[in-house]
Structure formats: C-alpha cells, structure tokens
C-alpha cells in the first residue's frame, strides 16, 4: 500500500465485515520517541484463538470469495520493514484490536497519506457504523466521534448534507493544523 491511511481503511473494513457497529481508529505520532503507532479497534465478532496466528499468513483467509487474505499480512510486513511490529488482540464475541508500530522516520515508512479520504470513505460508506478517530502529533491531538456528531445534530444521519459538510470541514481543518506542526 502506498499510504498508511490505506492500511487503516483496509483493516477498518475488516471490522465492518466482522459485524462491528463501532470502530476506533488512532494514529499516534510521537516524534520525540520516533514512533508512529496505528490502532484500529472494533467491537465485531472477534477472531478465534486458533486463527489469530494464521491471520498474517497471506495464504490464509476466512472468506470464501478468494483464496488469499492479504490485508493484515500487508500491514504486518509494512511494520516489520520499518523496525516495528504488528499485534492482534482479539476476544471472541467482543472485538479485535490491531496495533501496528513503526519507526517514525524510517526510510521505508510509507507516508500517512490522505487520512481525510480514509475517514470520509469509512464514515460515508458505512453510515450506520460509529467511528471514533484520534490523531495525535506529540502534544497536539484531534478527535472526532461520529456518534457525538449525530447526537448533536439531533440524530440526523451522517449522509445528511449538513452533517457531511460538518464532518468534512472539521477533518480538513484539524488535519491541516496537525500537518503544519509536522
């Protein structure tokens, strides 16, 4: 994947396929420690213990439409390539959390890329699912929670033009602010 934000989109889509109705995405950039951590947590059906180790095997997949499963294998490879690693924590029936760590300034680390595009695709492509997004750069951070936003708009859906506009504007302004710091 050309951008880390594409890995995030991909892994979050796994959560949606796992029947989650709430997904938390965290991008933690700690430049003093030279670490970049991605966390994607869902409250979907979880991965059975015996399948967790196989999840990063590209030739293993729980799906039936094709014979390979590359999503987590790609993220794992990307993290390992950048002096980091990936962890899968899953409780059957409760959900799954994927944590991937990277050396922030590693020469092979793909850029974070278009996080706005990733979040908009997730939020608008699955409007019934609540997304919580946190992006932290050193001491500055930005948070967005679609459940709070929907409540503030009196329960209107994210596909409502005004709600969509608000989500878009907030994401753009905040990512710009964080990018200027970086």
């Amino acid at each position, binding site marked *: 994947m050309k951008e880390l934000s594409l890995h995030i989109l991909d892994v979050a889509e796994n959560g949606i396929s796992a029947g989650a109705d709430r997904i938390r995405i965290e991008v933690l950039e700690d430049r003093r420690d030279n670490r970049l951590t991605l966390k994607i947590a869902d409250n979907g059906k979880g991965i059975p213990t015996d399948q967790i180790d196989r999840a990063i095997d590209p030739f293993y997949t729980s799906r039936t439409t094709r014979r390979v499963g590359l999503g987590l294998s790609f993220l794992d490879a990307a993290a390992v390539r950048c002096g980091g690693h990936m962890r899968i924590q899953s409780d059957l029936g409760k959900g799954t959390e994927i944590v991937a760590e990277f050396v922030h300034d590693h020469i092979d680390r793909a850029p974070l890329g278009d996080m706005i595009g990733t979040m908009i695709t997730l939020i608008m492509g699955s409007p019934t699912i609540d997304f919580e997004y946190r992006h932290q750069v050193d001491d500055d951070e930005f948070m967005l929670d679609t459940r709070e936003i929907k409540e503030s708009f009196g329960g209107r859906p994210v596909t409502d033009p*005004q709600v969509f506009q608000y989500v878009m504007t907030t994401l753009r302004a905040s990512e710009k602010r964080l990018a200027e710091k970086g």
Partner: protein
Amino acid sequence: MAKLTVDDLKRIKEKTAKETSLREGAAKIKVTVHMGTCGIAAGAREVMNALMDEMAQTDRQDIRVVASGCMGMCSSEPNVTVEMEGEEPIVYQHMTANKMRQVFHRHVLEGEVQTDFALAKM
C-alpha cells in the same frame, strides 16, 4: 482553529434544521464501491471520494452509496456496482475518479449505462 463545542454544534443544527430536509426517502438507486484489500490497493478510496464529492453536489434523495467487500474479481478492481430499481445491476471495472464522475452523471443520474467501462451485468 478553535475547538467546536457541543453548543456550537447545537447552534449549527438549529440554523440548518429549517433549511434542509433529511435525505431519507426510499433509495431507488444503490451505488456500491467494493473496498476489499484489492480494491483499496487499486484506488477504490479515490473513486469513493469522487463519488462523495458528486453526491454532495446533487440534491437527489433517492441515491444511496455503500462500501462493501471484495467480489472475488480482484484483477478488475476498483469495481463499482450500480443497481437501479427494476434493472439488472451493472458492474464497472478499472474505475478511476474521472470514470466514476462520468458513471455518476450519465448512468446514475440519467440512466445511460456506460458500456465502455462495464465488466458485466449481474
């Protein structure tokens, strides 16, 4: 940018509630962007963002956009399926942001299947 508070949001809500109606009527057209690993790696996110952009510019209430998983036709990704009430679903292949805009305007809005980009009828 100053942090928006819940009160700010409420004010926006009150201001806009009167101006707009909900996009809730029954959807007659469904546009699916396939978002498996294969689709994402091939550029499905840019396709979806172009589609969202076009959606924001139309006031049609009967169109629903959804993201779904891989269909098993990874080599023709990004795939987009357009389903119109009473018609067979059309799967488009090798989509880009520009092709998506064309399909949205010509097929979704005007009902003219863009056979040049079509992979199959389902």
